[in-house]
């Protein structure tokens, strides 16, 4: 799973499908579903968060207007969200998919997202725990100093 999520779209491919998208838009004032999907498929594999977000927006629209391709859109919505560490939405899409179809490809994405999100949570707890320790230390030191001062004053 990691390899799939770390794979980055070649720049020339992203540009090619971006051009195709822009070309159709300019020529006809609208873009075919096929071209939208191809462009979004490249965007969610980009190294840049803004591209991925743009890809997610296109996929969300496609999922609404084109039910026939919905399983592809929902999978890549989960995938794109996983790549920008938006784990709660990623899991939401995985679960929505698995409710309709039992699928190992989606299940392994779901497992990966769960693991990453648990890891992040543990990291967050460690940071918070560390901060509490430091704060406790400072407080303790302060109290000790104050007591010391009191003693000396007596």
């Amino acid at each position, binding site marked *: 799973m990691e*390899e*799939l999520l770390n794979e980055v779209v070649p720049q020339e*491919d992203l540009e090619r499908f971006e051009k195709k998208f822009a070309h159709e838009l300019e020529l006809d004032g609208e873009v075919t579903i096929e071209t939208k999907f*191809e462009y979004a*498929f490249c965007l969610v594999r980009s190294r840049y968060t803004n591209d991925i977000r743009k890809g997610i927006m296109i996929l969300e629209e496609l999922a609404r207007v084109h039910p026939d391709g919905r*399983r*592809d859109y929902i*999978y*890549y919505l989960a995938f794109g969200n996983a790549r920008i560490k938006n784990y709660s939405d990623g899991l939401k899409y995985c679960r929505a998919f698995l409710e309709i179809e039992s699928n190992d*490809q989606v299940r392994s994405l779901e497992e990966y997202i769960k693991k990453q999100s648990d890891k992040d949570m543990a990291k967050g707890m460690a940071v918070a725990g560390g901060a509490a320790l430091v704060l406790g230390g400072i407080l303790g030191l302060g109290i000790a100093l104050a007591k010391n001062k009191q003693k000396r004053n007596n």
Partner: protein
Amino acid sequence: MSSTPYNYNYIFKYIIIGDMGVGKSCILHQFTEKKFMANCPHTIGVEFGTRIIEVDDKKIKLQIWDTAGQERFRAVTRSYYRGAAGALMVYDITRRSTYNHLSSWLTDTRNLTNPNTVIFLIGNKSDLESTREVTYEEAEEFAKENGLMFLEASAMTGQNVEEAFLETARRIYQNIQEGRLDLNASESGVQHRPSQPGRTSLTNEAPNNKDQCSC
């Protein structure tokens, strides 16, 4: 995560291509898990699998990209051809149309990979003899004409699945031994992981090709 740097000497990149429903993912699954996936849904976009094999006492990690056969993914999955050392091109011996489309898959492969990419033709579902639509001889002839390696296999029984992956690796390894593959070129699809410590690289060039950034 393991603490040893690498437990293999080489990485070979493979792709699996071919029409929808010919059994590409089942072949991959049979190879990596040694199991048959009975009801296998259409792959979405691309799947990935790895396995470490041995050729000539060298450990080789195969990184296998299994592409979706659905037409809507055809244009976008071309990205994955680049830098493949091996391409497994699959058709279904019980569906003539999947065989007829091979020349188009072959054209894509030739255009998007390097001249040394090993292309292996697999006629899958060899267990379904009673519904066969493509003879062994015919496909063998096609493979010969186009310089492809060829086997009929069955992802269900596992027959010849292992062989197809291993034969491809042996041919790639042979190309390395004979100096036909430039291991420093990313499009070769091969990465070398020297296992002996202390082995140094002889390249002195500084990586100064970054100033041509087009951004």
